[in-house]
């Protein structure tokens, strides 16, 4: 069967003034339909760059990205994006934020209302329907952002450290919520994180990236049945293994930082 997302020989070079940063170098990655893939690596290794290329925000310098066999040209509602900064529209109420994508698609009013109502209920947001984002906690905001993407029925969800700014309890809560959604709607998910534990808790597959140039260091399948117990031996075994890999890259990051300080 054709992979849902095919990333072939993708590289991305940023040139800022006299310096060139190879953010991605020869990335090859196939993601199956319905697969939950985590991109893991230290800060600055190119995770966001890769995700943004799949989203269509910034095309790769070389290589191709195919979704359902079609090259990605631009951002689109078939690939719903969830940002770490939530990116909710602060001038729209919760309800309006979720409805926005459907209004863009010019769906009939009644259908929008029904769908938004169902999503509000599913993500336990009914009581916040008429609130503005500024009145919500981080966890609530991210629920709205997820609902906004779900409203579009995008087969693919791209998530860039969506739970990075949340406290650990809220984070676990949303992780469970996400797994429930993923199981129910059979989404294909690429999820960026630099938390090893988070990646093991969530993913079918963990793709560890190297720091400058951003390459795939290791592609690890996680076979543990869900829901996974972070205190189990198996979990911790994998955690140790991944920690070593990430640590190597982290120390390379630190060394580079001393040589040439960067913004990341």
């Amino acid at each position, binding site marked *: 069967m054709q992979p849902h997302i095919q990333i072939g020989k993708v590289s991305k070079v940023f040139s800022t003034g006299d310096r060139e940063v190879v953010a991605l170098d020869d990335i090859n990655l196939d993601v199956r339909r319905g697969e939950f893939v985590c991109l893991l690596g230290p800060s600055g290794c190119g995770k966001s760059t890769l995700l943004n290329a799949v989203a269509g925000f910034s095309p790769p310098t070389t290589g191709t990205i195919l979704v359902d066999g079609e090259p990605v040209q631009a951002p689109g*509602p078939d690939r*719903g994006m969830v940002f770490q900064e939530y990116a*909710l*529209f602060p*001038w*729209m*109420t919760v309800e309006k934020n979720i409805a926005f994508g459907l209004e*863009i698609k010019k769906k009939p009013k009644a259908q929008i209302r029904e769908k938004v109502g169902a999503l509000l209920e599913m993500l336990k947001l009914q009581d916040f329907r008429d609130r503005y984002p*500024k009145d919500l906690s981080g966890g609530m905001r991210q629920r709205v952002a997820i609902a906004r993407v779900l409203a579009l029925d995008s087969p693919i969800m791209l998530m860039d450290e969506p739970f990075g700014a949340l406290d650990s309890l809220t984070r676990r809560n949303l992780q469970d919520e996400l797994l429930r959604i993923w199981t129910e709607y059979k989404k294909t998910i690429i999820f960026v994180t630099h938390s090893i534990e988070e990646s093991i808790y969530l993913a079918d597959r963990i793709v560890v990236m190297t720091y400058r140039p951003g390459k795939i260091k290791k592609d690890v399948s996680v076979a543990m049945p869900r829901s996974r117990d972070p205190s189990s031996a198996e979990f911790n075994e994998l955690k140790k293994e991944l920690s070593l890999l990430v640590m190597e890259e982290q120390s390379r990051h630190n060394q580079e930082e001393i040589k040439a300080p960067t913004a990341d």
Partner: protein
Amino acid sequence: MFETLQGFLVPIVLLALWQWLSTQAIVNPQILPAPTAVLAKWWEYLKPQELFDPAQSSYLAWLFSGELIRDAYASLYRVVVGFLVGAVLALPLGLMMGANDRIYKLFNPLIQVFRPIPPIAFIPLSILWFGLGNPPAIFLIVIGAFFPILMNTIAGVRHVDGIYIRAARSLGASQTTMFLRVMLPAATPYILTGARIGVGTAFIVVIVAEMIAVNNGLGYRILEAREFFWSDKIIAGMFSIGLLGLAIDTGMNRLNNYLLKWHRGIESN
């Protein structure tokens, strides 16, 4: 309660001082009339000039037939019309200039040249072009309101956080939707700041314009009073101008809070 009283303390002391000063024979009442004289003049300026006659007009029309009311209305009318015309011109241009670099580069040099010219400096030209009456006055107010709104709209659009644009693009927003439902609302805090400055400028300009180009309105009235050495009327007129300005600013503030109820820093309940 105590706080409110505190707020009145300084004005009351000053008023008392003023009253005392004017009862002493040191100052000529034509230079500085007593507050009571100003108040009396104010009432005279405010109240209907003729007795109520049902055959002539309705009661309400009669009630508002005082000179002050008619002047205030004339000034307010000019401010509103001038401000609206200025805003209607500045807003689309500002949105386009903010969103499109090419349009920005096309218009920016011209704007940079005209912006530092105080609207007052347009008075001779406006009289030459439009003669006397409302047209030159409104023209000046348009100019006064135009630039603050324009500059702030440009800044507002340019400062729209890229994350909203990206989010909207990934939701499939068209150019029009992006413009109307993302850029415009995101820029409203700036635009409203511009509008508020614009109204303030318009209010300054209207007073000056009335002193020169028209023969009614609050600005005209205080200049006219000077010719008769009615300093009590001048001061009454000045306070009226201040109160109208305050009312306009309060109105803008209310509008601001209503339109920006989603904005951080403004409490909603």
